[in-house]
């Protein structure tokens, strides 16, 4: 079980902005969270809520320009990753922090063999010789469940199916025994059976290797099954944070509550029970001066249009950025 006292990764007040032709896009607004050793942290939120941009900002993997990391700190190993020199950052990338990207079909280089792409980080970070790297690459492919690994090292990405490519991506991310693995929707592009296999595999690897994992997904079902703790993102902000059971039992933010209602429950689910959240996601063209969810919120009060709520504790290890929820907790205590 994760130790609540320590953190491996601590993100404070991260702000990322894109300069586009149509003006600025404030994709990540004042995001703070921490990751504890051995923990699986789920990140959910609708499309465009800033999940990928947040995680890529941590390792400065966004194209600069158009992206710009305005402010924030990312503490890892006693250093601020946003301010370390290029060499230190490169030692972390692919070494201590592995990254699995959203789209397995395009994330591998089409003109190099899978073996070469897998051996690259091994040689760079672990200083392995060519033959040692090849042996380890074969082991990694076996670890992620690719049959006939020795032969497949010589194959090119197009010779692998989508699910197999995602496994290769996971193998690359795991290559140097990272302390942290960031997996950006590692299963979205896959069909359900492969999805289940990959989830199973990741969970097993996480326990075996004892690393902390950040798992981004749209799929609340997956989160319920594997996460220890969950961040809910909306409009470039973290609107709620809680241990997984607490969140599903007791969603405090109206967005989270609505999000949970969109999931058809397994027992007696009918199409008419499937709700959608009315309205449009917010336009992120300025730093938010009000609650980003207010236009779609059923419980909004007048204050929501004037101020952007900060996250306040609303339960054990549970906080939410909502005036209404905070007031409820307050009154319950009095």
């Amino acid at each position, binding site marked *: 079980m994760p130790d609540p006292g320590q953190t491996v990764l601590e993100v404070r007040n991260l702000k990322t902005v894109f300069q586009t032709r149509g003006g600025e896009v404030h994709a990540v607004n004042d995001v703070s969270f921490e990751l504890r050793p051995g923990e699986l942290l789920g990140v959910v939120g609708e499309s465009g809520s800033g999940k990928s941009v947040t995680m890529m900002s941590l390792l400065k993997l966004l194209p600069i320009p158009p992206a710009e990391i305005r402010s924030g700190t990312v503490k890892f190993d006693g250093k601020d990753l946003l301010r370390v020199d290029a060499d230190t950052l*490169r030692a972390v*990338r692919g070494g201590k922090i592995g*990254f699995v990207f959203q789209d397995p079909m395009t994330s*591998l*280089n*089409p*003109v*190099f063999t899978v073996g070469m792409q897998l051996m*690259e980080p091994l040689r760079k970070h672990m200083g392995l010789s060519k033959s040692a790297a090849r042996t380890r690459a074969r082991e990694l492919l076996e670890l992620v469940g690719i049959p006939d690994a020795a032969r497949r090292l010589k194959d090119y990405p197009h010779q692998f199916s989508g699910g197999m490519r995602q496994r290769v991506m996971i193998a690359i991310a795991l290559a140097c025994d990272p302390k942290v693995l960031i997996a950006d929707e590692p299963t979205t592009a896959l069909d359900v059976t492969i999805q289940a296999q990959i989830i199973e595999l990741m969970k097993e690897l996480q326990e075996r290797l004892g690393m902390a994992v950040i798992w981004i997904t749209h799929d609340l079902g997956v989160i319920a099954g594997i996460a220890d703790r969950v961040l809910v993102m909306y409009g470039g902000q973290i609107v709620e944070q809680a241990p997984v059971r607490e969140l599903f039992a007791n969603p405090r933010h109206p967005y989270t509550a609505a999000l949970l209602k969109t999931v058809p429950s397994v027992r007696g689910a009918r199409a008419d029970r499937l709700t959608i959240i009315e309205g449009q996601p917010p336009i992120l063209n300025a730093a938010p001066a009000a609650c980003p969810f207010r236009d779609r919120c059923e419980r909004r009060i007048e204050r929501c249009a004037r101020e952007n709520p900060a996250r306040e504790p609303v339960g054990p290890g549970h906080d939410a950025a909502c005036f209404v929820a905070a007031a409820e907790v307050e009154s319950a205590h009095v």
Partner: protein
Amino acid sequence: MLTYVIRRLLMAIPTLIFISLIIFLLLDLAPGDPTSQLPLTIPDEVRQQIRESLGLGQPVHIRYWKWLTQMVYYEPAYYLSQATGWFDPPEVARMLSWQTRAPVMDIILERLPQTLRVVGLAYVVGVLIALPIGIISAYRQYSVFDQAGTFVSMIGYSIPPFFSGVLMIVIFSVGMPRDSFWWFPSVYDTTLKVVDWETFWKQVRQMVLPVMVLALQTTAQISRFMRASMLDNLGQDYVRTARAKGLTESVVVMKHVLRNSMIPVVTVIALGVPAIFGGAIITEQIFKVNGIGQFLIISIQASDVPSVQTLTFIFAVLIVLFNLIADVLYGILDPRIRYD
């Protein structure tokens, strides 16, 4: 791959036969008379005799067949026997230029080295300059370097060699004092023999202007192409993966991105090779380089039909051949392409 190449080569045969027919018929229909350059005092009967002695009296299909067999069989056989001595040369008269009465193939082979030296070198120089420009322009998109590169390419694209060539002559041959380092000869001296350092240096200097004019064009085109291809690839997801693995920028760009970007560029470079012979026609004329481009111009002016037909056909063969080479290179560079 080998079966693919053989299949393509076989497919090229009907294509080339068709092209040869078109070339032959078009030039046969073209106005112009081999005797038009002869003095006006020659009487008409004599002119008619000359025409008949050149084989012009025969029907067109006979003449076509003679020309085709000569070109694809007898001439190669002649050179093969000359080179190896394995068999006697074929007992058919060589194809002669109407203008000089020398074998057309001999003239072409004699002139080819000049063309290759000037035009070929210009192409190599142009490509070698273009690739780094394209890479840096893309990596530093919208930087001062990129803007300058765009400007130079625009010039290279929009100014034809017959203008830039003359401009070069005006600046470097006319405008510079004769003893200055920046003075370059405007006339290419083919009789120059490289025997020592001094003549070598002279040879280099007389190649500077024509090479510069031709290289400007090549550089403009290839550097734009390289830039576009690099930009295409720099935005790809696999580049982010490479960075996320902790690779240095030089490895990311010069290995991962470049290897992908070179695929279309290599193809374009290969496809451009036959075009350089065509492009050389004007530049050779300006700098008096007696290569095959200049030969084509002279032959056209003299209505020297066999020479024009042969040169045109050789260009056609080069185009078909380099198309095949481009396709094969594509298949070698891109593992996703399989031809068989």
